[in-house]
Structure formats: C-alpha cells, structure tokens
C-alpha cells in the first residue's frame, strides 16, 4: 500500500536554508527558502517549515494534520562551512604524553612536489590548547601506563580561561581500546558538566594517530554547533506538533539518526552535497542518462561529483578545507566515508579582490549570509559573485527568491567600483571578470576530477543544482566542452529533493581482524544478530522497516600484511558455514578483477564485517504542486544581459520557468527565472522543457 501523508526535507546551507514538502504518494512538492540565520540556524528552519505548512494548507485544502508528517529528512553544510571558514568553537585537545605536536607534524610529505613555497594546513587547535596526559597503551590495547589525572585540572583551568567550547581526546592506540579516553571524558565531565567531548575511539576508530586526531579535533570543533542546532531543530518541529522521525543525511549519501548526528557531526561534513548528488542522479535516471557531472553551487562553495552508471563514487579518505585548490593532501584529513566530490570556495557569496600580483581573484572567502553580498543591503561592502551576476543582468533585483528579497543594484555597483578602481579597469569588465574567473576556477577543478576518473567531460551531461548553479552552469559547461546541461526542478533546493529521493539505508559494522581460516562462525552469528537488532531499532518505524527490505553483508578483506582492504559483498540471510568458502572465492575474484593478479601463497584476512539494510533504489518523480497548466500562453519579459560572445549587453527574453509548458522548445540566449534560482543561457542553445518540469539545454 502506498504511503499517505507528507514528508518534509530541510537543508541548512551556508547562505540559505531550503525546505521541500512532498505530498504522498503522488510526489507533488512545494518549496520554501530563507536566508540562513547563523546565530540560531533553527530559526530559518522554523520559518521554512511554517511556510511549507501554509503552502500545503493553501494548495491542498484537505486537512493534513501534523501526525500525517511521515518523516523529516535533513542535511546541512553548516559543519563544513564552519571548518572552511574557521568559525567553529575553540577546542582543547588532550593527547597522550609526547604527541601534542602530532597535528603540526602531520605526515611530513609535500602534496605538491614542485611547489617550493608550499602552504600547509594550519591545525584547528593552537599549540597552547593542547594538553599531554600521562597514560599509555600498546598496539594491542594493553595498558602500559595507567591514566593519570595529574595535570588535568591545570589543563581544564587554562581551557576555561581561554573560553574553550569543546574538548577533543585522542590517545595512542585508542582505536583498539577506548577505555582511557572514556575514563578521561568521565573525569572532565565531572569538572566541566555539560561540556561537549569528542573521543577519537568513537569518532573515527581507525589506526594512524594523525588522521584520527585530525578527524576528532574537527568533530569537536563543530560538535556544539551541530548539537545545538539539532536540539533547536527538534524543538522547532515540536512547536509545529511534528513528532515524525528525523533522519539526517551523512556524507556517504545514507542516513543517520538525529542523536548520532549530534554526537558525531563530522559525518555530516558533506551531507548537503550528498543530497544534491542524490537528486541529480535521480533526475538524470528519470531521463535515462547514467553518466553525469553534478555541479552544485551555493552561497559559499561549489562542488562537482562524477556519477557513472547511476552511482556516485565514494571515498574513505576525505579531506576538509584544502589550502590549495584541488590538491589532495593539502587539507585536514577526515576519516569518514563520503561521496567523492571536489569542492572549491566558489559561491554566490565569494568575495572578489585584487591579489598581491595585482590580479583579480575570487574566493575562497565568502560574505556568507551575514552580511552577505553588497547587494543584499545588509552592510556588506566587498564585491561578491552575486553582485557581479546582478550587474551582468543575470539576476533580477526584484525577483530574487521569488521577489521575497530585493537586491540593491546601487550597493553592488558601489562595491564593484571600488574593486574596479583598484584594478584599473571598468566596472563592466570587473563584473564579467568576476563571473569568468569563478567559472574557470570551477571548470578547472572539475576537469582534474573528471580526468582522475578516466572520463572525457564531453561524454558527460551536467546536472546543475544549488542556488547559484543554474546561473553559472552553462558557462562552466562551455569551458569543459559539455554540450548538455540539465536543470532539475527546484534546483535551488536540490539537496532537499535528494534527501527525499535517497533510499533508506542503515549500516552497522564490526571490526575483528582474523585470518579467514580462523574465523569462528558462531561468534560472527552472535554479532550479526546484535547488528540486525540495532539496525531494526534505528529503522524504527514500521514504514521504514518495511521498505528497507534489501539486506547485505560487506566484508573488508585483504591479504595478511597489507594495509588496504577490498570490500566483498554478499546478500544477507543469516550466517551459515558456506560463507567462508564463498568469501574466499569472492575475494580472490575481486582482487584479480581489480589488480589483474593475486598474491601466490599469501593468507587472507578479514578486517571488518558490515551489515546494511536498504530500500530498493527507484526513480522518484517529483512535480511542482504549483506548476502552471500547460495551456497558459508564453509571454516573456525582456531584459539586458551581458553576452560574452558579443562582449556586450543585449535584450533577451525572460521567462517564468514554471509557466512554460512541458515539451516547449525555446532558443537561447534567454533567462528562465524561478523562485529558487535563475537559469542563465547567455549563448545560442536549444532549450527544452522536459516531462516533469526539468529543463534540458543543448549548446549549439
């Protein structure tokens, strides 16, 4: 039986908070958007939810009580923005004696061989807030020196004096035995009740102290922020009498519970983008396209992710806040599975400036939501990408956010004039320069990423999402040689549609390093019964449990002695004795497939067992509940926009996107406006509105 009622998705971005409500079972959606409220992010969420519920009442007069809300799915880029912009809380780090410099020393390698002026990432905790604790475990987790609390009070006193907002603890070998970390946390809690504490053994229980410490510190750096807003979010939802389960999207594109997200928010690092990629994959699959480049540009950052055969690629060694664009190794290592995407500090809020060589640079610093771009009229004085887009005619000052927010052209012009004078070029040239430089930055990043996947960008279609994505997509595609660009419906809230489209999935794992020959299946069976129960508990509601019908086991295996593992997957229906032979055969087959050879005579080892339950992946077709009927006549306004081919302004037609009927074909250059974003086609192109409302642009 199809589900009745409705679902709500909310995404808190650096600049905007987006919301979508989906009416079940048909999939009509209503949208809302507000400026993010950094002082209390849940305030914007509450406004968005109110807006959605009002729209729901207006559009569907039938009564929809709060208990008909089946679930709230949620994601946020607050976590990643806090790290990139270094706006997390002050963290005190407690480490094993002798390891306070580990996060300065890192791995001692250069991420760029040839850069003699190499810049290295600066740790999130300064030296004076790192405290060494007398304790020691060995590599087997046995206690060599018991945990000593002397020195703790001094450390905590300093931490309090300095206004520390969170504590990170990372002891050597805590990935084997977390008891010292737990005991220290207990001691700290008794002295500083209520303080947020991140333990490396819980946040990232993996070997290698630098990477684990970096991940733990990053988690602590954002944890109070995340915990606070998740709590406030729940309050706000309760204020609307919504008590449906809250699921939060994690970086890998799956979900976790609100409680788990509040404790380990580092897994949310890429939750917004993961939603965007899920939405793009869903839209493309609707059209039968399998290989895409998702291009997501918001207020603060832009991301690109390649998906082939309908599946986004996943990475296990992720990095946050790279100091050198696109350079692997130049960021802070984060041990958490994530959709493999590249990210760059390029968004609508990115600030343009003159660099020390006298050249125009854009980003990565962002004006964020407050004060925001100069044209927001909230006190921002520095010119941003949005200011340039406004000056180029790409944005309509009276139709931004569907007219809910007026952009001030005079403020944008004033900000651009200052920069133009500084550079010694015209305001007009400066505006196009900002647009073009930020596009080239994004295209360059995408180019390397696509090449790393061994793909030719000309074979990919682009799917543009995010508030600023549709404004910039065509020019970025042009630079990459991509000829077809798709715009999902409600591109400005793409992550929300992705949250709604993503399959329900819950994962649990158990690490136990053993030779395959020595595995005790009875142990495995007992553990799996527990994992299965855990998953069922997390799935919670009967609806979710019923839909999560596909169970699978993933086993990370390697040859004994290797560091890296490969994942062997099997359908799950209990553990029986044929599984070991099956695992051996699958491991050898997979190894041979991957590496073209096996290792003669080497023993096989099992490292981690994973159990997952997932709903069947299926294409979700969303349609805008507010879309106009198709017999309405197409009347276009016109406005002057900058066309790069002619290096000048021309009068082009401006359409309200959702008034164009399905199947309509139009010719670029043109502008398609919608409340969430603006599709800018500043070149000759064929523009088609597809079934369901997505727009396809084929560049001539």
């Amino acid at each position, binding site marked *: 039986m199809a589900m009745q009622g409705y679902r709500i998705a909310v995404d808190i971005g650096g600049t905007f908070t987006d919301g979508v409500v989906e009416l079940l079972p048909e999939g009509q959606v209503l949208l809302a958007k507000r400026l993010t409220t950094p002082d209390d992010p849940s305030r914007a969420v509450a406004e968005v939810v109110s807006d959605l519920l009002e729209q729901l009442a207006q559009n569907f007069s039938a009564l929809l009580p709060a208990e008909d809300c089946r679930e709230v799915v949620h994601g946020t880029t607050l976590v990643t923005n806090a790290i990139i912009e270094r706006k997390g809380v002050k963290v005190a780090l407690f480490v094993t004696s002798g390891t306070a410099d580990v996060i300065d020393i890192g791995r001692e390698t*250069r991420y760029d*061989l040839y850069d003699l*002026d190499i810049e290295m990432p600066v740790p999130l905790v300064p030296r004076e807030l790192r405290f060494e604790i007398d304790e020691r475990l060995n590599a087997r987790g046995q206690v060599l020196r018991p945990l000593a609390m002397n020195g703790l009070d001094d450390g905590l006193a300093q931490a309090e004096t300095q206004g520390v907002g969170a504590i990170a603890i990372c002891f050597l070998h805590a990935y084997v035995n977390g008891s010292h970390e737990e005991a220290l946390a207990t001691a700290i809690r008794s002295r500083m009740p209520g303080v947020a504490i991140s333990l490396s053994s819980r946040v990232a229980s993996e070997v290698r102290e630098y990477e684990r410490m970096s991940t733990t510190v990053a988690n602590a750096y954002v944890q109070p922020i995340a915990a606070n807003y998740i709590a406030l979010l729940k309050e706000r939802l309760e204020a609307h009498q919504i008590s449906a389960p809250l699921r939060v999207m994690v970086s890998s594109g799956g979900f976790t519970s609100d409680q788990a997200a509040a404790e380990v928010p580092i897994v949310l690092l890429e939750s917004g983008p993961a939603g965007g990629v899920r939405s793009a994959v869903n839209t493309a699959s609707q059209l039968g396209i399998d290989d895409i480049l998702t291009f997501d540009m918001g207020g603060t950052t832009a991301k690109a992710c390649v998906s082939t055969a309908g599946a986004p690629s996943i990475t296990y060694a992720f990095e946050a806040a790279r100091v050198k664009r696109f350079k692997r190794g130049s960021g802070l290592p984060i041990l958490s599975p994530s959709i493999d995407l590249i990210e760059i500090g390029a968004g609508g809020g990115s600030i343009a400036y003159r660099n020390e060589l006298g050249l125009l640079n854009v980003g990565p610093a962002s004006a964020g939501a407050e004060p925001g771009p100069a044209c927001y009229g909230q006190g921002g004085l520095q010119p941003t990408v949005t200011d340039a887009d406004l000056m180029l005619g790409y944005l309509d000052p009276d139709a931004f956010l569907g007219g809910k927010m007026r952009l001030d052209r005079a403020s944008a012009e004033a900000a651009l004039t200052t920069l133009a004078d500084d550079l010694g070029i015209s305001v007009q040239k400066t505006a196009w320069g900002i647009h073009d430089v930020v596009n080239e930055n994004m295209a360059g990043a995408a180019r390397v990423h696509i090449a790393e996947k061994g793909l030719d960008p000309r074979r990919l279609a682009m799917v543009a999402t995010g508030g600023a994505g549709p404004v910039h997509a065509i020019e970025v595609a042009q630079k990459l040689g991509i000829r077809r660009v798709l715009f999902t419906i409600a591109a400005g809230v793409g992550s929300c549609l992705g949250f709604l489209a993503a399959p329900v999935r819950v994962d649990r794992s158990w690490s136990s390093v053993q030779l395959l020959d020595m595995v005790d299946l009875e142990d495995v069976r007992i553990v799996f019964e527990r994992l299965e129960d855990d998953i069922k508990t997390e799935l919670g509601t009967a609806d979710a449990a019923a839909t999560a019908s596909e169970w699978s086991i993933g086993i990370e295996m390697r040859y004994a*002695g290797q560091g890296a593992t490969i994942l062997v997957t099997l359908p799950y229906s209990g553990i029986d004795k044929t599984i070991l032979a099956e695992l051996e055969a699958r491991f050898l087959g997979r190894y041979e497939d991957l590496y073209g050879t096996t290792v003669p005579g080497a023993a096989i080892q099992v490292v981690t067992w994973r159990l997952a339950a997932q709903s069947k992946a299926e294409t979700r077709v969303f349609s805008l509940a507010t879309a106009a009927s198709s017999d309405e006549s197409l009347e276009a306004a016109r406005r002057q926009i900058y066309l790069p081919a002619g290096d000048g302004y021309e009068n082009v037609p401006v359409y309200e996107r959702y008034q164009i009927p399905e199947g309509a074909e139009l010719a670029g250059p043109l502008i398609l406006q919608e409340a969430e974003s603006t599709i800018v086609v500043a070149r000759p192109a064929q523009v088609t509105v597809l079934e369901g409302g997505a727009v396809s642009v084929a560049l001539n």
Partner: protein
Amino acid sequence: MSQFDPVSLEILWNRLISIVDEAAAAFVRTSFSSLVREANDYAVVLTDAAGGSLAQSSMSIPSFISTLPKTVRHFLERFPASELSPGDVLITNDPWMGTGHIHDVSTAMPIFYGGALVAFSAVTSHMPDIGGPVRTNDNSVIYEEGLQIPRLKFVSAGEPDPVVEAFIRTNVRVPDQTMGDLWGQVAAHKMLESRLVALLDETKISLTDLSREICQRSEAALRAAIADLADGEYHYVVRHDGFEEPLTIDCTVTIAGDNLSVDYTGTSAEVDNKAINVVEAYTFAYTAFPLKALLSPDIPNNEGSFAPISVYAPPKTVLNAQYPAATAARGQVGHMLPTAILGALGPALPDRRVAEGSGNSSITIVGHEEDHPFAVATFVNAGLGATARRDGRSALSFPSNLGNTPIEILEAEAPLLVHHRRLRHGSGGAGQRRGGEGIDFDFEYLGQAPASSAFLMTRRIEPPKGNSGGGAGAPARLLLNGEVVDPIRIKRLVRGDRIIIETAGGGGFGRDNDA
C-alpha cells in the same frame, strides 16, 4: 601544427597522468610494507616504447622520476623489443641502472597494443629488506650491502620465474613483505596496462604522436623559463658532514640562452669506505628536480623536462661513483644537490632566494620478536630553510617526499615504544624569516631479543646555513641512553635502550632586526 586540439591534448595529458596515479593507488593498496603505504617511498612511471618518460605518479619520489625511465632503457639494452612478450615483468636493483642503491627494486612491464610494443609501465619501491646488514653508510663496497639483482625476467609471458623468486626470498629477512611488495608492483603494471589499452582503444590516438607533443610542450616551457634568466655562471658550494673529513659539493650552473648546464667539478672524491656514494643517474635526478620546481613547476613532468638540462660530474667523484662503490646511503649526499642548485641560482632570482634546509634522516630496525621477523623503517624529516618571502617549513620532507610512519603503525610492527614525536622547538635559524623546526623523536626498544638498528643522519656537523644574514639552524644529534653518539655504526639494541634523534633546523633568511 599539432594534430591535437587544445581540449583533446589537455584531456589526453590529464588522462595519462591519472592512469599512472591510478596504478600508483593500486600499488599502495596492494603493498605489504609500511615503506610504500606510509612513507610513500616509491614511484610509478609510464614510458614510451623507447623508455622516454611520459607521465609519473603525482606523489612520486623526485629522484625516481628521472631514474626509472633510464632503468627501462637499461632493460631494453639487455632485452631488446624482439625478446619481450606480453606478460613479461623485468626486474633489477643494480644501483647504476636503478635508483642508486640496491634497496630499491625496480620492475617494468612492456605494454603491447595491436601486436606492437608501445609503452612500459615501470615501478620502483624501497624494499622492507634486501639482505646484508641493515641499511647503513658503514659499508665499503656493494658486495657488503645485500642482495644484488641483475636485469632478469621476474615473470616470463605471465609465468613467474621460481628461481628468481627463490633467490630473493632466501636472501631477505622478511620474505613475505618483500615478495608481497613485488607482487604489488605487478598489480600496478597490470592496472596501468589495462587503463592505457582502454585509452588507446577509445581514442585511436598514436601514443608516439602524443608522446612527442607533450614532451615538446614540457621542454618548450622549461626552455622559455631558462631563457628568462640572465646568461652567466652561478656558483655555490655546500658542505656535507662527511666522515673523517667534510665533503664538498661544488656546483656551477651555466645559463646560455635556453640551455642550462651544471658542472660539479671540484666536488670531493668518491668515498672508499662509506656507503654515501652517488651514481650519475641519481646526481642528474636531484639536479633536474630543483630546476623544474624553480622554473616550471606547473607544467607536467616528462622526458621533455630533462632535455634542456645537462649535468656533468667527474667520474670517481662522490657524485659519479663507479662500481663497486657502496651506495646505500646515497641520499645523504644527493639530497644536498637541490640546496646547491637553489643556492647557486639565488642571485638570478632574488625573490626566490632560500636558506639551506636539511634532508631527511632515517631509522631502520630489524630483529625477531616471538619468532616473527620484523623490519621497520621511519623517516625523520627536518626543518627547511626560510625564503625571501616566508619562514621555513617545519618537519617537512625535501627534496625527497618521504612520510613518517605513524607511531601506531611502528609500534604494531616492531617492539618499540615511542616516548615523543615533537617539533624540535627553537631549532630553526634566526632571521627576518625564521628557519623551520626540526623533529625531536624519542623511542625505546622493548624487544626480548636484541635488534640491529641503523641511523642515517645528515647535518650533524655542518648545519643548514642561513641566507642574506639569517642564522644557521641547529645541527642534528643522535642520543643513545642519554649520550650523544656517532650514528655511523650499526647499533645493537637491547630491551630498555632509549634513542633520541633530533633533526636539524632550517637556516634563517635576512637579519633578525630587519623585520
């Protein structure tokens, strides 16, 4: 006119690099030793059918980038194309044909397309063990250093040679790790082959044409940068600690139009009782690397990047050692060549001036614990020199690119207890820009049975000098149980022995009061 449009060339070039990076990723994932996984002590290179370099793995060791293509050419001398079949894997660790010491084993696999030899996949990596004593500079001739592997077929048309394998297994302390790493190299070759064949299938391009095009572009970019320098002779001398007496590296760089030549005449003679001699190919490698970094860092490296550069070191000097000289610790001398080159060219590029820094030191420990052999190594990097623009970086590998082995990995693999791994605060040279800090690494041996340990250290006597009035960095030190000791001899470690290794700070730049 080029047959490649700018879009295609960009894509193809990036794809060649990404193919090699993918093969490198396969190697790292399939390797058994922490030297590859953690320390990054390897490289993967794709060459054309004649052994000319086309692309390299991004995280390569700089020296391997230019020695590996030469290794392929040495393989071709021994096994001409007519004697190669699909599925062959060639092997050697000859220092003069490989990377300059026997501890790196190099393999290469010919890649065929349409029945013709079109390319080679080449991999080299530092083995966890190669027999002989622990890697030390206390050898006089190569015969003392361990197993020598001449140019052989490790795999013939897909069939591993059991004789070659048996010889290697028998001569090394940790045969499973050593052989595992060699099979990892084979995995990298297979990955590179399948990706390259897919590229050729898909694009129908001629690899020869592509090779010519990208090498010309890399060469032209480097030549243009050389031509921008004022013609003339630039000179610099670096002092190395040496043993009985210090060694001198005497470097003269001559710029003439778009050609650059380096002459090491005046450099000290080969050392006949210590293993710090450098083979010619390694001297070339660490001469070409800083020039590329200084002059065209953003252009991908390939054979064209070497063409404008000629290097001469007189035979029988420490920079052009002859068989059977011992070479195990050749990096201690070779790592100073970038210092000499950057020092020499300072007057030509005043805003790129840089004070001297220190190369890495290393620790190797081998022994038995509970009947299991262990062999671990970690690199201990040092402070880099301050530049005209900023302070020197602390604890960073240069000119090599060798990572540390995490404490947790070291302690899992060998009976060691690390007391601290810290920055050596205050070790950087004073100046308007301060030199980078070295490392202070303190550990204890916990094994029940004694172990052998070797410490390769640099900049103990001759610390990194400052530039333009900046002060020198602190010299390196080794302490055994609280006593400063000379690292040259292999140390027998017994339970409770405590070792502290302090690496040098980088030199400062400019006078302190100029700030």
